[in-house]
């Protein structure tokens, strides 16, 4: 110990352990001899003494309590208060992860339709870590902007193309991951904007279908909803689903950012009778999807499988993947070129982790972050000369206009975000998505918690959020002097040397 003022906790604990029984005895004597009122003290002290002896001599699980007794409990108490205390009192506005307070506040303000202008400067560091948009010396005015239109399937000339008019897609969240009220709020809200919602891999999208919004049906590696007994694709069931008016697109998920190379995961706490029926899985145990589609064993079979889904569904079909090795991606593109068969879009999912439950190692340490992954994908497609054969969708923490415009500059045609929309309906980032205890009822199936969500109110917020993002995107496009997102390019970005994109900016 360096200073004389420091408290010697070992001594303090020894003193406490001796003092407690002595004090108990004293208060008992006082209660006996002086006034019976002292026994109000005696009784709790007896309890404390017993607990202390239990900690010191009976329990064997916790070394700290075995060594120091009741005082050691203080550590556990303070530790359990820690996360809340830090979040409420001590965390700076730009400190928290995955979304800091300023980022979340921006979404909340957009969802509430409150002015999101801020004053007296930015909170960000500018020295070397922030990618920025290079505005034009000659900004254009809003009348010159072209309306946003993105038609999936036009390259193949199919009948049932789908034209996206809102560049912000609700990324895949299944009923299971989210509760039914949250799903319906999102679906109703996006329906009001004419946008698109992805169903996630949760089987038959019962609640997504309720609000008449356009849907992209996602096929995960477990193929919930379109699975045969052996885990392969059931063509008939897929065709039936694809025949529904609301299902406009099919997305084949090869991997996802939260746990690339690992199947989806639904913890047993969240599997209700209804979910077990919709997915065809047993209750009472975690559902872990396979790591890959049995149909996709190599480049050739993967491309063939995409083509098969296109033929069965007659809809635009895309794939979603989190980039691992860009060389593998380039190889996949080369195979597509060889077979002259392309998906109608590719969603590049950043490895930043999503709502989904995932092992910590996968959330933290597997997969490429979005921006370099997106840039690699764009480069691979351009150098193969096939960029015009498909669309690129970007997803991964793109909740604010500032990060979305970067993704557009890197080649994205549309943005998908899940957590941005969750924040818009009131997510407070309590980080309990996997335990069915979400305090705002978004990722919970507990009716008492879901009660907090008023669908009409939340739907309005979803629509507000989308409209606000569109407004900001328009302003950014004007500033960049681009009439639509297609006119944006990597050259519109200022890329300082400590960013992940720097290697792309200075390649020979």
């Amino acid at each position, binding site marked *: 110990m360096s200073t004389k003022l420091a408290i010697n906790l070992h001594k303090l604990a020894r003193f406490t352990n001796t003092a407690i029984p002595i004090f108990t005895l004293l208060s008992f004597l006082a209660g006996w001899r002086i*006034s*019976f009122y002292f026994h109000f003290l005696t*009784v709790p002290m007896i309890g404390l003494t017993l*607990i202390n002896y239990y900690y010191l001599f009976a329990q*064997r*699980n916790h070394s700290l*309590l075995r060594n120091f007794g009741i005082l050691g409990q203080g550590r*556990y108490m303070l530790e359990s208060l820690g996360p809340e205390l830090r979040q409420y009192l001590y965390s700076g506005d730009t400190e928290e992860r995955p979304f800091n307070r300023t980022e979340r506040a921006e979404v909340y303000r957009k969802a509430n339709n409150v002015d999101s202008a801020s004053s007296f400067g930015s909170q960000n560091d500018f020295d070397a870590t922030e990618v920025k948009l290079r505005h034009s010396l000659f900004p254009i005015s809003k009348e010159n902007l072209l309306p946003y239109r993105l038609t999936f399937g036009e390259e193949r000339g199919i009948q049932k193309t789908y034209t996206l008019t809102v560049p912000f897609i609700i990324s895949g969240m299944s009923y299971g991951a989210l509760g039914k009220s949250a799903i319906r709020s999102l679906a109703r809200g996006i329906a009001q904007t004419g946008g698109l919602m992805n169903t996630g891999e949760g089987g038959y999208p019962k609640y997504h279908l309720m609000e008449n919004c356009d849907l992209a049906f996602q096929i995960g590696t477990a193929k919930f909803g379109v699975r045969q007994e052996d885990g392969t694709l059931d063509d008939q069931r897929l065709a039936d689903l694809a025949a529904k008016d609301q299902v406009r697109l099919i997305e084949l998920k090869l991997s996802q950012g939260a746990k690339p190379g690992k199947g989806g995961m639904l913890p047993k706490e969240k599997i209700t009778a209804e979910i077990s029926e919709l997915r065809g899985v047993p209750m009472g145990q975690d559902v872990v999807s396979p790591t890959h589609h049995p149909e996709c064993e190599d480049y050739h079979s993967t491309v063939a499988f995409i083509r098969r889904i296109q033929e069965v569904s007659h809809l635009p079909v895309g794939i979603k993947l989190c980039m691992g090795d860009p060389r593998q991606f380039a190889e996949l593109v080369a195979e597509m070129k060889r077979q002259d068969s392309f998906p109608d879009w590719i969603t590049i999912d950043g490895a930043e982790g999503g709502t989904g439950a995932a092992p910590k190692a996968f959330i933290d340490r597997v997969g490429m972050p979005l921006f370099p992954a997106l840039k690699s994908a764009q480069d691979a497609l351009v150098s193969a000369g096939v960029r015009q054969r498909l669309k690129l969708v970007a997803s991964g923490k793109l909740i604010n206009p500032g990060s979305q415009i970067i993704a557009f500059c890197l080649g994205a045609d549309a943005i998908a975000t899940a957590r941005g929309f969750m924040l818009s309906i009131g997510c407070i980032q309590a980080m309990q998505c996997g335990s069915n205890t979400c305090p705002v009822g978004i990722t919970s199936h507990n009716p008492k918690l879901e009660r907090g969500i008023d669908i009409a109110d939340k739907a309005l917020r979803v629509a507000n959020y989308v409209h606000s993002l569109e407004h900001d995107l328009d302003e950014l496009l004007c500033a960049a002097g681009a009439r639509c997102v297609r006119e944006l390019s990597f050259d519109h970005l200022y890329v300082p040397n400590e960013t992940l994109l720097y290697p792309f900016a200075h390649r020979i």
Partner: protein
Amino acid sequence: MKSPKLKILSWIAQFAAAAIMGQTLYFKFAAHPESVQLFTELGMEPHGRLLIGAFELIACVLLLIPSSIVYGALLGACLMAGAIIGHITELGWEGPRLQLGSLAIAVFACCITTLIIRRRELPLLKAIQTEKPTKRARPKD
């Protein structure tokens, strides 16, 4: 608390404790001579009698509200421990006092039973309530 049997046992204990404590309240609040006599001997008349009566009332109510059962049981156990101390040090066990003392012990036992069954609901003891680590086999075995 896992099995429904234990849950039923806990509720029986809660009702018993609340019923026994509850019926003595009338005597305490109505200043029944016997009750006044008891608290005079303890040197707590009348404030102590009313104070303990109020605490017992609170304990009875808490014991019957699902989210506060453990707190009611804790309070009840403390009060009854006090009563037992009273019998040991001042009141003795002769005649009708034996019956009163046994009732206090019975309520104490009920409260402790409830506490043991519902120990996982106790707020500050969470730290030691984790299960003993179970054995995990190697993935390939």
